């Protein structure tokens, strides 16, 4: 029987933070997740899995067989294999760090790659690069796994047959001769955005050789609307850089600028730099967010307004009128006067709008209005005009000149050329257009039906695909060439701010792939390159100062070149951009209704545009907002769900009826499972993109163990493909009245889909877990975080009956997490997984509560309504707080006292450590852990495949469990990623956050080796940190020596906002949190509902 700890009585004001609607309603499922460490059945093999009885029978047989041979009595003879010749810089077993960069569509991210014995194992941000400050995000952290993806493309293919590279080279030579004769007519390239100067240079050479060739850049999630608006308003090649560190008031309209996955880490850092409140005297910025679904930006907002995405134009228009009223800006007059305000706009909360506008008007030149990439060009222009009227241009919004080639065409132009039969040879470099191109790119002239890229590509006689996987696009291409990973190839790139970065390979191509520039060079007929020659040539053309070789070495060593400076340009907004409005009609749409809702298509926090579909770490990463793993879902509001009569998991059929002006009426349909998401706008459905991409099948489950037999064919990943609904005419939201859309219908299918939803798993009991206050509340009571109502009487700690561990080491480790700058982006979770060899377990295992993440991010909603007074109406617009939850390293650790074999003990420097080889797997420790941070290896996740795919109807579901019967052994490439300094745990072992003990020990040993024959063995202050703290783009996590009063962590812990979890249990946690501060505008109508997750006093009604 489980003893339930009697927490001190909660004060009458009640608990205001909750994790799910299940908690709000106190459902039995929720009680089970709360009261048990592992849910019912976590420790059982149930349902379609093996029964425990079968398992014991099977194991009995194995044991008997094992006994016969006495196989393990002889010492196996192992060998030490040194190099034949010394390898430069290499010391066996020591890490080597190289600067490189990850190319991304919004600009590259400068990195430091950790390599050991010649293989890269971990990526960190490059701290030398001043703008990025050593920040990374989830995709950077996870990209190392893509390098070792065993289902990567490994061969050259022509018409389905494996060929040698020489055949492809011969084809290129032949092509050069034939196409060269026709000035390159019929030759086209379809590429990703990489901002590589060398690629641009080679493109220029190709254009000299083939003057009529076409070059199309396509990125499904790069907004053509935004680009068009920026170039029209600020000239070709312009790019706008928001300067958040200068902005006091920020209004984000459908803009998730805090989504680190977009790669703009500089902006995220700039924003959070204004939220580091150290004392009551400090100021912070204020963020208003208007959005239809909860985003990371919305989670950090001070004021959040739910608004359907299709109503953002109407909101912007209304805002512009308010700003115009306050500024009488002539530019704004011009653009507003010229626009047609037809249609009936939604009724917005008038006070919300006008007070937000007043707040912006009060800070001219220090405010910022941002609009999301999905809004039409006219709205983008209007927002520029608003910023111009607020005098923000040149202050908080600056324009920067980027290399620009006017001959680049967009995807619809390419599609029309293909449709007209003008393209004879098409090179598709990267991407997966068959999967993610917008639907209906062109129209068939006979039938007047829209044609998708999948049919268009078939019209091209010769398609050459350079791809990372043999995916759906490769299947329709005549040639498939394996693409090299960026960690395998030479390259260069520009950051989002325009800095010039070098990319150097960490390892030779594992499977003989080519990089883009190598392919272009081969097509140009250049000499075959194996080194950095192509990059060097580009670098030479930038005229580096001094000796070339020195400059080049410095460029590689630092990872960036300082002599190439980005060029800022005059930020003057030309308001008379009349031509733009014609392209995008400025008609305000009527609000979506329950009968005809809007469908919003957005990027996914895990899959991006689908390029990480085969990345097990990202698939298993719980979405920071919904906590959903392995799937996407149609997000809807609780009220709308009630109206439709659906619950989380129910399947919905979405139908978009199109009736374009010139063409046939058609239906676009998608069946997708629902997820009820509090805080979502009503009558609006959000579908994250990037799921259900067809990938080559290699294992039953990506990355989780190894059935080493390669299975042929292409299979579909989990989730639902939102690209089916994404058309060229309406790429971001589909709503009645949108271009060619008659109506949008949603019907209940009547079946359910199994989700692996993490939101109720690992729920913690107890109070004061998340603490927050408003800035005013903090100034009035700076100790609000220390005292939680009801806890005062427990200030005197009860004596512990156990002996306190002797914490006598000279340095004592601890951590603190600043909830005020934590955006919940989850980079720390993936960084932890990469550093600590944490396995992927698979969808079914996650649903059983067997996920292995050492660091999880708890997401809490906070709403005004006390949790136990639910009258059937779910809160409409809750706030959100993210709380990263690693092991708290209690000094009086409850786990240690119950371990029967002393496998978990306390170290002298304050860590709660695990000795894996002592653990016998009783799981008492995790039963006794109040934070539920201990993880148990129910199976040999790193050694055996966990699931076998089972298809139920049209849905892909991981179902069957075959682990004990499968072949043991992981593919070699997967072993190459493992961190050699961390034990790979096997079945039956408990594990948890170690505070990166391997890094602590490395630092200690380095200090000892340095000390030599002297007594100074202390590790220098703040000289190393944990993987999560290093990955955090906002420095929310700070680790260090808490005994040293000058260390960063001690200074953080000395702040007023510092608090420890469940302090009334006298567990004395080493980790602590800094409470969140929100900065509401007291004049706003919702001001009294802000910052209430831990109400200090009774909230005014």
């Amino acid at each position, binding site marked *: 029987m489980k003893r339930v700890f009697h927490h001190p009585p909660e004060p009458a004001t009640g608990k205001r933070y909750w994790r799910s609607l299940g908690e709000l309603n106190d459902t039995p499922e929720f009680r089970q997740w709360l009261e048990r460490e592992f849910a019912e059945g976590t420790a059982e093999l149930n349902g379609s899995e093996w029964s425990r009885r079968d398992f014991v029978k099977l194991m009995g047989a194995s044991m008997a067989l094992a006994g016969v041979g006495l196989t393990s009595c002889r010492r196996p003879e192992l060998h030490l294999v040194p190099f034949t010749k010394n390898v430069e810089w290499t010391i066996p077993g020591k890490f080597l760090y190289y600067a490189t960069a990850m190319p991304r569509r919004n600009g590259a991210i400068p990195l430091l790659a950790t390599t050991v014995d010649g293989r890269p194992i971990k990526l960190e941000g490059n701290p030398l690069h001043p703008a990025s400050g050593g920040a990374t995000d989830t995709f950077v952290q996870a990209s190392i796994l893509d390098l070792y993806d065993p289902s990567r493309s490994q061969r050259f293919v022509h018409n389905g047959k494996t060929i040698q590279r020489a055949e492809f080279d011969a084809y290129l030579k032949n092509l050069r001769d034939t196409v060269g004769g026709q000035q390159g007519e019929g030759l086209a390239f379809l590429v990703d955005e990489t901002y590589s100067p060398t690629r641009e240079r080679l493109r220029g050479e190709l254009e000299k050789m083939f003057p009529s060739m076409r070059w199309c850049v396509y990125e499904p999630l790069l907004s053509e609307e935004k680009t068009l608006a920026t170039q029209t308003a600020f000239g070709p090649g312009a790019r706008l850089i928001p300067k958040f560190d200068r902005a006091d008031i920020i209004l984000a309209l459908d803009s998730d600028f805090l989504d680190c996955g977009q790669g703009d880490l500089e902006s995220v850092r700039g924003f959070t730099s204004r939220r580091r409140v150290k004392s009551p005297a400090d100021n912070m910025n204020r963020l208003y967010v208007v959005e239809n679904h909860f985003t990371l930006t919305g989670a950090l907002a001070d004021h959040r307004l739910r608004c359907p995405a299709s109503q953002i134009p109407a909101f912007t228009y209304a805002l512009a009128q308010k700003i115009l009223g306050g500024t009488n800006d002539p530019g704004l007059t011009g653009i507003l006067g010229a626009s047609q305000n037809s249609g009936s706009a939604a009724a917005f909360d008038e006070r919300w709008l006008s007070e937000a506008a007043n707040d912006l008007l009060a800070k001219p030149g220090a405010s910022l209005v941002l609009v999301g990439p999905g809004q039409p060009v006219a709205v983008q222009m209007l927002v520029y005009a608003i910023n111009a009227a607020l005098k923000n241009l040149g202050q908080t919004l600056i324009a920067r000149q980027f290399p620009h080639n006017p001959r680049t065409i967009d995807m619809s132009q390419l599609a029309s050329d293909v449709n007209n039969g003008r393209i004879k040879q098409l090179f598709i470099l990267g991407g997966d257009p068959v999967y993610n191109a917008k639907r209906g790119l062109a129209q068939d002239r006979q039938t007047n039906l829209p044609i998708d890229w999948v049919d268009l590509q078939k019209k091209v006689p010769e398609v050459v695909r350079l791809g990372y996987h043999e995916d759906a696009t490769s299947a329709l291409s005549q040639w498939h060439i394996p693409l090299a990973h960026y960690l395998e190839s030479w390259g260069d790139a520009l950051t989002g701010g325009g800095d010039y970065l070098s990319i150097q390979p960490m390892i030779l191509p594992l499977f003989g792939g080519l990089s883009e520039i190598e392919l272009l060079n081969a097509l140009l007929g250049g000499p075959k390159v194996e080194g950095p020659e192509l990059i060097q040539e580009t670098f030479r053309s930038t005229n580096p100062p001094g000796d070339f070789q020195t400059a080049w070495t410095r460029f590689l060593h630092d990872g960036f070149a300082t002599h190439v400076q980005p060029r800022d340009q005059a930020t003057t907004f030309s308001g008379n951009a009349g031509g733009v409005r014609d392209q995008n009609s400025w008609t305000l749409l009527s609000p979506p209704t329950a009968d005809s809702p809007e469908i919003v298509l957005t990027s996914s926090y895990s899959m991006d545009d689908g390029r990480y579909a085969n990345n097990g770490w990202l698939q298993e990463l719980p979405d920071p907002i919904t906590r959903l793993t392995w799937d996407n879902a149609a997000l809807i509001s609780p009220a709308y769900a009630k109206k439709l009569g659906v619950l989380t998991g129910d399947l919905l059929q979405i139908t978009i009826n199109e009736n374009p002006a010139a063409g046939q009426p058609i239906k676009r349909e998608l069946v997708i499972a629902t997820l009820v998401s509090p805080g979502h706008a009503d009558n609006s459905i959000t579908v994250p993109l990037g799921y259900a991409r067809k990938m080559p099948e290699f294992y039953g489950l990506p990355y989780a163990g190894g059935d080493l037999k390669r299975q042929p064919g292409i299979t579909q990943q989990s989730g639902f493909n939102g690209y089916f609904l994404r058309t060229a005419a309406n790429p971001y939201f589909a709503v009645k009245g949108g271009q060619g859309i008659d109506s949008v219908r949603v019907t209940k299918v009547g079946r359910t889909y199994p989700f692996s939803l993490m939101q109720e798993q690992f729920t913690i009991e107890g109070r004061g877990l998340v603490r927050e206050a408003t800035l005013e509340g903090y100034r009035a009571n700076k100790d609000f975080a220390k005292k939680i109502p009801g806890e005062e009487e427990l200030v005197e700690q009860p004596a512990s009956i156990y002996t306190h561990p002797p914490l006598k080491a000279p340095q004592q480790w601890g951590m603190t997490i600043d909830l005020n700058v934590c955006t919940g982006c989850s980079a720390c979770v993936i960084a932890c997984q990469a550093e600590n060899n944490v396995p992927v377990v698979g969808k079914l295992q996650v649903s059983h509560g067997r996920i292995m993440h050492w660091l999880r991010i708890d997401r809490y909603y906070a709403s005004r309504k006390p949790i136990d007074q639910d009258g059937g109406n779910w809160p409409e617009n809750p706030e959100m707080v993210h709380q990263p939850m690693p092991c708290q390293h209690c000094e009086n650790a409850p786990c240690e006292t119950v371990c029967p074999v002393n496998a978990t003990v306390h170290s002298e420097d304050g860590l709660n450590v695990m000795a894996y*080889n002592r653990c016998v797997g009783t799981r008492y420790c995790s039963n006794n852990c109040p934070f539920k941070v201990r993880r148990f290896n129910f199976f040999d996740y790193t050694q055996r495949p966990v699931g076998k795919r089972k298809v139920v109807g049209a849905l892909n579901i991981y179902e069957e469990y075959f682990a004990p019967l499968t072949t043991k052994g992981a593919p070699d490439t997967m072993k190459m990623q493992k961190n050699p300094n961390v034990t790979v745990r096997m079945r039956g072992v408990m594990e948890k956050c170690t505070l990166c003990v391997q890094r602590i020990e490395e630092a200690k040993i380095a200090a000892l080796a340095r000390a030599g024959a002297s007594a100074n063995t202390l590790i220098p202050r703040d000289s190393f940190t944990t993987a999560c703290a290093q990955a955090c783009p906002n420095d929310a996590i700070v680790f260090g020596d808490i005994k040293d009063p000058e260390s960063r962590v001690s200074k953080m812990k000395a702040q007023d906002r510092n608090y420890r979890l469940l302090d009334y249990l006298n567990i004395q946690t080493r980790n602590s949190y800094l409470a969140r501060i929100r900065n509401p505008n007291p004049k706003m109508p919702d001001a009294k509902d802000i910052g209430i997750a831990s109400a200090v006093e009774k909230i005014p009604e």
Partner: protein
Amino acid sequence: MANFFPRSSNWIPIKLLICGIVAAGGLTAATWYYGTPKYTKVGYEPIQPVPFPHDIHVTQLGMDCRYCHSFVEMAAQSNVPNTQTCMNCHTQVQKDNPKLEPVRTSWKTGNPVEWVWIYRTVDYVYYNHAAHVNRGISCFSCHGQVNHMSTVYLAKPHSMAWCLDCHRHPENFLRPEDQVFNLDWKPDDVKPAEFVAMYGQPHDAGEDLSKKKKLTQEEIGQTLKEHWNINPPTNCQGCHR
């Protein structure tokens, strides 16, 4: 009715019990002795591809350990020399010796020599050479008198208890930093006056050590332990991560 069992059979249960106790005790004692690394591992002397004589190289020719094990002061692993290191000399010395054929083949083909691994710690143990040799622990303490071995064998048990013997009492093994790679060093070699002048003496030493004729290992070790602030970890995380 005749007795089927003679009277002496009354003693059988007692005898059986005694035999059982003796057998069980013997088995326990045997396992205690023969089942530990001290018996099972020590003396392991596999045949190497090249019978490298440490005694010739170190004792006769006077080579330093670090000529071949070059990264021992920097890295966790003490590296085995690569073929290039061997060929530095053996392109000129003993260049036709048939025993060196594997090395020459390796040099020609580029395939490494596969040495048989003797001192293998299990994967969950993270031993670090740099932390030891830089802090006054000699090669000798773990590897024995390698400088007198014609072929290397495993000299010490390398069990966890054996590790802890030193981690709990490092004073029994510490030596001056310049003697770490001198495998023939004895505590008697230390000149007390010089030693005390350089390192001082333990705070609880009852006498002036510099006046002594000879110093014991404990006296030397204790001095160095205090002088260098030696504090070896005895908790799990020191070796298991």
